[in-house]
């Protein structure tokens, strides 16, 4: 393995996550990263906004630490560009206010300056720059959100759609064979402390 410089721009974890030192992660104990995820500088993730009302089944087992307190979970090969913000969305549930966890699948790209407050985002989703994803929106797999879109709260976007606009509407479909563009493995390799791996 190549030697690591003592203090690079990114913190590289054992599971291959690359987290910028200048990222603002609040409540890190409630943020789950699936591995090989890139978090660029100035990204903000609100892990402190956890679910405050547990579902009735898990509330009964009140002994010890709560089983699942994850506020934001992110899959593998996700790419969070500079300045984007991920936060769980809140809503009234059974008369009490609670935050709902934000779940993100694999190979999700979030563009620069976007604010994501979705309930769930599927796999292979491309979110452009300056996008606002409204509270409790659900984005399925292989969706492309173009730059500057505003996705309304509670909107459900079906798989293989291309959405744009303010408020966002489905304007097209991902063409056949267009799935390859969503792969983020190559992009993962382009950032980090030593981009060109030194020959051992």
């Amino acid at each position, binding site marked *: 393995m190549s030697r690591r410089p003592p203090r690079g721009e990114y913190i590289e974890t054992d599971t291959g996550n690359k987290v910028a030192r200048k*990222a603002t992660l*609040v409540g890190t104990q409630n943020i789950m990263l699936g591995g090989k995820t890139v978090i660029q500088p100035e990204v903000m993730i609100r892990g402190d906004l956890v679910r*405050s009302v547990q579902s009735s089944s898990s509330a009964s087992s009140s002994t010890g630490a709560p089983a699942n307190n994850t506020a934001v979970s992110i899959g593998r090969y996700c790419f969070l560009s500079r300045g984007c*913000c991920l*936060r769980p969305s809140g809503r009234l549930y059974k008369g*009490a*206010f609670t935050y709902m966890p934000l779940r993100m699948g694999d190979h999700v790209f979030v563009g620069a300056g976007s604010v994501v407050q979705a309930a769930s985002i599927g796999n292979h989703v491309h979110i452009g720059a300056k996008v606002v994803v409204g509270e409790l929106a659900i984005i399925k797999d292989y969706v492309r959100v173009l730059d500057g879109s*505003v996705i309304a709260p509670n909107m459900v976007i079906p798989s293989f759609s291309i959405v744009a606009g303010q408020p966002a509407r489905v304007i097209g479909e991902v063409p056949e064979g267009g799935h390859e563009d969503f792969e983020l493995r190559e992009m993962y390799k382009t950032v980090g402390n030593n981009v060109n791996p030194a020959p051992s």
Partner: protein
Amino acid sequence: MAAASSNKRHSILPPVQAGGPKPPVQFSSSITIADSAILTGPHLIAIGSESVIHPRARLESQGGRLAIGRRCIVHERSTLGCAPANRPALPSPVGLQTTDASLPGVTLGDYVTVEVGAMVEAGNTIIGEGTTVGVGARVGKGAVVGRHCTLTPLTVIAPGDVVPEFTVVYSNGQRRTDRRGAAGLRNKGQARQIDVLRRMIPSNPGKFSQ
């Protein structure tokens, strides 16, 4: 197994660098203000009871004093009292004090929500009770937004513009009137949200009050 944030690793919260003078503040005893909120400027910043200021929210009083009503929520990365867009930065606070000291910079009514990354420019800007300023929206200098309005994400309100009460501004500046009559319900929801946030956000008003 895939948890990257192990307990060994410290929370990655870079220190906040707030330039300029520390503003005089007038906090109600029941507010919640995050440690990493940023307060700058020479003029008074007043925050009413039970309001919540999220981490990394910016309150700037360079352009006049800031008044935040009761039960407001100011989300992260939003800026209250920022310089107007056409001027990159306000002149030195010393020069401003003589001209704008009597003018309020930004006034938020009660139950106002300022969402993530929204900007409210200084210069006697007034936002009425129960209004929501959406994600990334920008309210221009001297604009008056009425009560119970909704400014949807990325809305821009021009400087000096007047938005009548119960207006919804959406889709690049289109407007309609909100006739749902849900204002009371919304305020109740806001109060519930504050109850939860007070438990979640570690408050440190002492940091700002010296």
